[in-house]
């Protein structure tokens, strides 16, 4: 029973970290219509920023700053916002597929940099000994897991509330207008450039925060955490939950993560040991099938876009 609660807390913590990333994507795609397929890159920037700033001195790697965890998180948000804002600026003229390809390229560049800039990121060995919040509780795994869940849930809630407020504000209304018709929005005095960069930066900051929170939750990060599969998972979460809805983003993350873990259990239980390594791909298949079913049965996702409603 205790094990089950502990596992449940661990599962939910991971799912909520995905929920934070998905909230960031919802601002960019659900609200503004920016086709960002470089999610993994922004999560990585956040994770590495906070990890490098908070870890103790390590030979052959820059570090030893020993910042407090919260300062690491704030720096992660700031740097990811800058990186995402710059990406938004550099891609101002790109739309839809072209924007997607470019942002995908950004993520690949970030991952390759993490893999090869050994002096900064530890290269393939990653960054270890990332301080964990309330590390003193580590002797009691259950309490430690629950405290971690509490922290992550609080961060998720804060992001949710902030993004919900933003998306209902006149600022969010401008983003929706840009999604619907950029030229018309410009004719009404909105600077499409400025708002696009802002949407990139705010969404990126949220993704970077998620990356940083996860780094401190696991205690270790390495470049292969930030491969395109992560981007794919987050997109599936937003599609399933309902693009345009912050509630949907959170729900979708939990549901898709449950399917992902469930598919992992099933394959490990049903598939012969020799085949296990290959059967791991069935997790991606499971998400793909789920995505197809959702798109066929409820294309707007669980919490379909509540579009066309006023700000009451």
């Amino acid at each position, binding site marked *: 029973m205790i094990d089950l609660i502990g596992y449940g807390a661990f599962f939910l913590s991971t799912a909520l970290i995905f929920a934070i990333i998905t909230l960031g994507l919802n601002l960019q795609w659900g609200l503004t219509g920016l086709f960002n397929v470089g999610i993994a890159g922004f999560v990585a920037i956040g994770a590495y920023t906070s990890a490098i700033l908070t870890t103790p001195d390590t030979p052959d790697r820059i570090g030893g700053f020993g910042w407090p965890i919260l300062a690491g998180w704030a720096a992660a948000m700031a740097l990811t916002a800058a990186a995402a804002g710059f990406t938004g600026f550099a891609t101002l003229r790109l739309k839809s597929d072209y924007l997607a390809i470019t942002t995908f390229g950004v993520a690949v560049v970030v991952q390759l940099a993490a893999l090869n800039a050994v002096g900064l990121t530890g290269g393939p060995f990653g960054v270890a000994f990332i301080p964990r919040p309330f590390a003193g509780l580590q002797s009691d795994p259950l309490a430690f897991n629950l405290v971690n869940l509490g922290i992550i849930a609080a961060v998720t809630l804060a992001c949710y509330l902030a993004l919900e407020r933003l998306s209902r504000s*006149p600022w969010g209304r401008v983003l*929706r207008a840009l999604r*619907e018709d950029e030229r*018309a929005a410009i004719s009404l005095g909105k600077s499409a450039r400025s708002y696009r960069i802002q949407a990139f930066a705010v969404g990126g900051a949220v993704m970077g925060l998620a990356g940083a929170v996860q780094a401190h939750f696991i205690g270790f990060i390495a470049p292969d955490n930030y491969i395109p599969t992560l981007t794919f998972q987050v997109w599936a979460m937003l599609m399933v939950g309902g693009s345009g809805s912050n509630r949907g983003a959170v729900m979708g993350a939990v549901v898709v993560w449950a399917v992902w873990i469930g598919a992992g259990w099933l394959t490990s239980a049903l598939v012969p040991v020799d085949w296990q390594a290959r059967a791991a791909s069935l997790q991606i298949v499971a998400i793909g099938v789920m995505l197809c079913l959702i798109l066929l049965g409820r294309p707007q996702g669980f919490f379909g876009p509540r*579009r066309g409603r006023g700000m009451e």
Partner: protein
Amino acid sequence: MTTPPILEAQALTKRFGGVTAVNGMSLAVGQGEILGLIGPNGAGKTTMFDLLAGSVTPTSGRILLAGREVTADPAHRRLSRGLGRTFQIPRPFPELSLVDNLLLARQGQTGEHIWASFLSPRRIAAEERAAAEKAREILSMMLLDKLADQPARVLSGGQRKLLELARVMMADPQVILLDEPAAGVNPSLLEVLIDRIRAINATGVTFLLIEHNIDMVTRLCHRIVVMASGAHLCEGTAEQVSRDPRVIEAYLGGAAA
């Protein structure tokens, strides 16, 4: 004209590669006037319109709005300077409600700054309330009040034209550029549109109208400017213009020659 023009184009030229779409065109719209800009297809009317609206930058020439130069201002700065526009094919925000469509047009909104939602929520709420009230008034003037909370995609073609006019009115513009407002509007709605343009004009708002529907131009416009081959051909009242042999030539013979 006794008062100085509210909108003035001085020797505007626009070249697209080897094509000169607008060639040294000058135009002055008087305060409170409804000016029609007509001309055969290919005369450069739409380019002229885009130049005035700021979506195209001129190769040379100047644009003055209320005596102030706006030539280099990007399109998104013009509405706050008092120059609004509508589109030939209306561009509503289809998934947003009519009220939200209008609210977007208000200039200088506190709530459009990202931090304001957290720093001054009360001020935003007050601004939003006042703006929503105004939006509903304008919508009812345009006979769209029953649809105020519907998404704009439910509107007919003619209603979309009314919505665009309503939207731009929300910004209290001094000058409104109308790009073929009559195109694709059914006759009864066209009457409404003409009537509303007159009513808005009566409050002191200036209009520049590009239009093919000669009936509408004749009925609405105080003065008509005819463009041909990217340049000013002649101007005058509807009657003067329709009798001018150069105009007849441009429409019937000149364009083909």
